[in-house]
């Protein structure tokens, strides 16, 4: 055949094969972590290997909607994982162990199920002591109902409680606060001569004295990012997914004998004094750590640090009490 024909054929073959082969080659060698909503599979891959002390470079992309990436209980800024774009993250782990990574931007009803693990190998360093959560050491049944038999007529005021405490002091230790529900403290004050409303005010004061402004701000932010979608922006249990959860509960066939109250249900209303005032911080910590066992409430144990959970709990009680502005101890 003529030379021009031969050259043309070669050129075409090279051009087309190159246009297919080169990108294919690069694609095959690119390891990306793909994020999809949980209903479509979540993270892929969802188990990552690493070594303690070595930097781990991750490339993340979303295949559908906006997601985010963070590793639980690590002090890191979450990284947005955007559809069609690639985000780069470098992590270094000091200690070996299993870390949980999770999605940080709401991506549907099952957003909280978007989790994976990073298995960090390496020689185990000195064993870290793990403290048992308070609700376990207190032997609390966090699934038992905890309605407060008495509720205040109006929102208790911490500043009035502060003023009252000048004459009727109240134990303010952190452990006392954590281990008792507001109702229990109210009940213990029945030995004093205070009126019911005054007793609630002192309870509010006790609560505020175990809360700092910083913890409230942190708690509010954590709440907005993690809880508001179900529990409502104003804590009333009417978040954007509340109806879907209730509907899922009705359709759910997960009822097992003895656990009918463990199907998906509408999220708790934190503005409801009956439920909230009967719950101690330790009980709330338990619920947050362990999750709702099929109710749709996620377990946060591997995600939040202990400090984050106490901050969140402090914020939850702020729906029940009028805290005053000024610094508290």
């Amino acid at each position, binding site marked *: 055949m003529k030379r021009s024909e031969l050259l043309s054929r070669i050129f075409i073959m090279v051009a087309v094969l190159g246009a297919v082969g080169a990108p294919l080659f690069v694609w095959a060698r690119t390891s990306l972590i793909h994020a999809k*909503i949980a209903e479509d599979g979540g993270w892929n891959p969802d188990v990552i290997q690493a070594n303690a002390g070595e930097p781990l470079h991750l490339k993340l992309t979303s295949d*559908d*909607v*906006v997601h985010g990436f963070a590793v639980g209980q690590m002090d890191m800024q979450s990284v947005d994982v*955007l*559809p*069609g774009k690639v985000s780069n993250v470098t992590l270094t782990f000091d200690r070996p162990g299993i870390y949980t990574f999770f999605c940080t*931007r*709401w*991506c*549907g*009803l099952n*957003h909280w199920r978007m989790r994976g693990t990073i298995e960090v190998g390496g020689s185990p360093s000195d064993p870290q002591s793990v403290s048992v959560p308070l609700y376990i050491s207190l032997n609390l049944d966090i699934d038992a109902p905890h309605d407060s038999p008495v509720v205040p007529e109006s929102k208790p005021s911490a500043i009035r409680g502060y003023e009252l405490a000048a004459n009727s002091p109240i134990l303010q230790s952190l452990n006392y606060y954590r281990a008792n529900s507001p109702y229990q403290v109210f009940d213990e004050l029945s030995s004093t001569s205070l009126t019911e409303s005054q007793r609630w005010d002192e309870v509010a004061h006790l609560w505020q004295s175990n809360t700092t402004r910083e913890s409230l701000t942190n708690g509010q932010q954590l709440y*907005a*990012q993690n809880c*508001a*979608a*179900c529990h*409502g*922006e104003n804590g009333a249990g009417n*978040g*954007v*997914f509340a109806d879907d959860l209730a509907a899922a509960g009705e359709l759910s066939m997960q009822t097992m004998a003895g656990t009918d109250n463990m199907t998906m249900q509408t999220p708790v209303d934190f503005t409801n004094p009956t439920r909230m005032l009967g719950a101690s911080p330790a009980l709330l910590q338990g619920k947050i750590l362990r999750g709702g066992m099929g109710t749709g409430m996620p377990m946060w144990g591997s995600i939040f640090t202990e400090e984050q959970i106490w901050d969140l709990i402090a914020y939850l009680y702020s729906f029940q009490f009028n805290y005053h502005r000024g610094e508290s101890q």
Partner: protein
Amino acid sequence: MQSRFFLLLFVMAGLVVAFAPFPVHPITPQERAFRIEARQFAYSPSELKVNLGDTITLEFVSTDVVHGLYVDGYDISVESDPGQTKTLSFVADKPGSFRFRCNVTCGAMHPFMIGNLSVGQNEWFYRSIGLAIIATLGNIGYLMFSPRPTLITDY
């Protein structure tokens, strides 16, 4: 000769319709607040109507994934994660009909997630109707007055 005159007449009418300033009924600007919820792939409500000059406050919240709201023509936007309401305030100082659309990729039909903001009179729409009417009348008029037989009655 006569047809040229009519052509000129229609062109003049067309220019007037296209360029004459719109009659504006002065309405006192108000403050308006709307709450818009976004889901894949629609807004609720998806059609808003305000008067020229109103100050609009949009409370925008997503109900399933992260969505945005971008207003064509005003070039302003807001983004919301589910359950986290964000506010967008602006003065509706440009009249017309503006689409607002999602500017955060939210799934397959994202480019078509669209709503409509109507500020005052939809001037371009009315001008277009005017021009279309003039064009139609002009054409029919030409047919009626031209010397060649073009109407069915002539057959």
